[in-house]
């Protein structure tokens, strides 16, 4: 088990290096530091001096890969690639364009993100699994048919509709909770409720349909026939036998995204004014703050790879057939 985790972590290294190189190429080669500076300072009437000064302030004045002017290790370390790209491995994200430490921002902003994402995920799975079980129980009947139809309608409606509609109804008409904003502690609760509910509803259609297929697939298997032949009730067949087996794909599907929950939801957070990492990323994209975007892309990839590793490990925990070697 330990050996497996170590080996998988080692396998992750080349992938991470690849991701790192890719972000480097995207952010510094395709888009040269000059372009970035010009984008910030305005396209017209920019003097070369202003560009150089902007670059120097942010450490973008160094050569990309090899520093000819420096001596010794400086040749390698005194470069943009080393300082900006490789440093990501040490979680040194540098500073954003407004001069604040990105690492600092991440560590404070991830909490609001989690405050929304974790309840959304847990409640979402609970609700989707319950409804999916219900449809599976009544499979082939009108309840099932209409359930699926409603799921498809819910999937076809844009997520923005739920957000704006929810804010209008609950916040503006009924005045139950504030339309947007955030606070810590108990006071935060009223800000969290609406985004969580809307996050759950937005994902419900797809979730129910997916889990229903998992359940129906399991229901067609031979061991279900054995369970029925034992004289077990249909609900027991469904809740112990089918649910236990279907939880394997459900859980592993969830584990993949667990680490990325830190990153928050781009749209939900910006619409509800949650100061999380999702809105941070959106703001950075709007402000063309490449340092932040680069940090978030890299962080997202690392967390996703972590998720894949956790998935494999979770298989060993829920499925007795899988033993990692």
């Amino acid at each position, binding site marked *: 088990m330990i*050996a497996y985790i*170590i*080996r998988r972590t080692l396998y992750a290294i080349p992938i991470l290096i690849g991701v790192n190189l890719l972000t480097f190429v995207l952010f510094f080669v395709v888009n040269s530091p000059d372009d970035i500076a010009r984008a910030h300072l305005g396209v017209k009437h920019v003097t070369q001096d202003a560009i150089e000064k902007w670059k120097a302030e942010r450490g973008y004045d160094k050569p990309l890969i090899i520093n000819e002017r420096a001596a010794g290790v400086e040749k390698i370390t005194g470069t943009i690639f080393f300082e900006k790209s490789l440093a990501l491995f040490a979680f040194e994200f540098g500073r954003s364009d407004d001069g604040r430490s990105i690492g600092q921002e991440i560590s404070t902003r991830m909490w609001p993100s989690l405050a929304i994402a974790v309840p959304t995920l847990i409640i979402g799975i609970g609700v989707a699994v319950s409804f999916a079980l219900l449809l599976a129980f009544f499979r*082939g009947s009108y309840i099932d048919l209409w359930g699926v139809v409603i799921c498809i309608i819910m999937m076809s409606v844009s997520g923005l509709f739920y957000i704006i509609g929810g804010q209008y109804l609950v916040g503006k008409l009924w005045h139950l909770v504030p339309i947007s904003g955030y606070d810590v502690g108990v006071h935060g609760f009223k800000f969290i409720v609406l985004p969580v509910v809307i996050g759950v509803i937005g994902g419900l259609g797809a979730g129910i349909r997916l889990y229903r297929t998992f359940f129906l697939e399991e229901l067609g*298997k*031979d*061991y279900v*026939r*054995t*369970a*029925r*032949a*034992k*004289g*077990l*009730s249909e609900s*027991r067949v469904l809740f*112990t*036998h089918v649910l*236990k*087996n279907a939880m*394997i794909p459900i859980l592993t599907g969830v584990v993949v995204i667990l680490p990325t929950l830190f990153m928050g939801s781009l749209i939900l957070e910006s619409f509800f004014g949650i100061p999380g990492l999702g809105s941070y990323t959106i703001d950075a994209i709007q402000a063309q703050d490449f340092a932040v975007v680069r940090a978030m892309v890299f962080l997202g990839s690392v967390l996703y790879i972590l998720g894949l590793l956790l998935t494999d490990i979770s298989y060993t925990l*829920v*499925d*007795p*057939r899988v033993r990692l*070697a």
Partner: protein
Amino acid sequence: MKPLLSIKNLSTWFETSQGRLRAVDDISLDIAPGEVFALLGESGSGKSLTALSLMRLLPGTARSRGEIWLHDEDLLRLPEIRMREVRGGRVAMIFQEPMTSLNPVLSVGTQIGEALRAHRGLKGKHAERRAVALLDAVGIAEPQRRIHDYPHQFSGGMKQRVMIAIALAGEPELLIADEPTTALDVTIQAQILELLRTLQKERNMAILLITHDLGVVSQMADRVAVMYAGEVVELASRAQFLSAPRHPYSQKLFDSLPGRAQRGKSLAVIRGMVPPLTQTFSGCRFAPRCDLAWQTCRDVTPALLAAEGGGKVRCHLYDANYSVMRPAAPPARLSACNVQAGAAVGPAAPGMRAGADEVLLKVTGLKVHFPIRKGLFKRKVGEVRAVDGVSLALRAGRTLALVGESGSGKTTVGKSILRLLPITSGDVHYGAVDLDSLRGGALRAQRGALQIIFQDPHSSMNPRMMIADIVAEGMIAQGMGGDERARLARIDRLLEQVGLSPDVKYRYPHEFSGGQRQRVCIARALAVNPRIIICDEPTSALDVSVQAQILNLLKRLQDELGLAYLFITHNFAVVEYLAHDVAVMHQGRIVEHGGAEQVLSNPQHDYTRRLLSAVPKIAHHA
């Protein structure tokens, strides 16, 4: 004695796009307490659906009608909640696929415990003690420890034992066993049947044993019902059935069995196929395939009538009112050799053809080892010696049977000869050519000479390719068959050679039955003019009557074309019928090798004896 279970006029049907499919059509049966009642029939005859109707476990699209009396309760009219007490309680069921019939994520103890709780009200420690006792009763060693294991930690035979333990948990009066040994090896099969026999005697439990295997009937049954196309066509005691089967279909089943007595002869075949069950029948359902049919058979539906000497039979030959109307010939049993026109062959005659005695394929010291990798860097920590020093010689026009249980390495030998698997050491000579030294084009050229056909004709064909393309594929790869026109003409000839109409070449694999698909596979193999065909269990997925057709075909092709077969099988009846030489394989080695006659009648090695004694013998003397 009052019957334990009494089925009266049971029908089970599906509404399909082709109309109503009557899978079980008005059958009536009685099963006495403590008897083993066999339900015999070919694939699709409605055996499983009869059993599922009893348990009320039919698929949602099925409907059934009739009466099923268990003592004095009609199961079909019981409310579902009472039916649950019957299921697994008074009537238990085990299935054909032990591999998939257990829940993979629950320990076997839990799975037995569920049945104990539902029917005996046992929980916790009591349930566990009882579950251990049940595992012990079905012959699982160290039950105390194994009870916490999961299904994947058991072999196929042991899983079937666990299934039986679950079934016994409710102490049923009737155990329905749907092909309980079909998916298992001969030796395991014998053990499971033995176990069922013992349990049945100890507990005075009745068994409804569903099977398509006459050997199993002969070994187990007290009484037999033969099903054909959804109907019961014959009911008899075992003795009666084995010594003098009455229905022409039953007789044909016996005649199509391969075996030593049939050596050199063609097996009797039942022409045609099981009719689709969506039609409405007029007359006898077997009439289109029956050698004894006459006009009355096609006009009047025969009834299931009591026959002389006990039992029942559904055939006009036994109905005095109609049999007198039969034009000629006595209604006696037809001779066993109902050889089809054109299929007549003499005894296999080695030496008939020039160079027939030449050694075509010589395998010496063949080893195939698979590495086991473990640890941080997937280091090789050991190896599975699938094939460990096998030497064989195959002569032109002869059949060498390679027999052994599953896992003994038979298939690996076949595949490595064809270089479908890398050889660890040893050499394989085709004539004077060392196959192992060939690469690229030279290898491809030699591949034509050696062909293989597999057990499962379904998965060995690309479902999206037309028959013509499937057959032509090898020819194109070998650059033979000339232009498009010549190739099509050759495909027509090949299809005719394997007994298919040339029109089928524009159809797709799913439109064919198992037997027809195997014919296509044989045509594909023949397309490249092979001299050797490796047949890997080519008939074990097929029913006896279809198996007979394929064996006849292989035999005829051998005589006509001088083919050599390396015949991989675990079916001794086939070996007795077809093989000239036999090699017995056990744990990667050949433990016995010699002429078929000698190995089968005077086995030297213990393992061979064990294999032979596990084969269900059919005590049939006609």
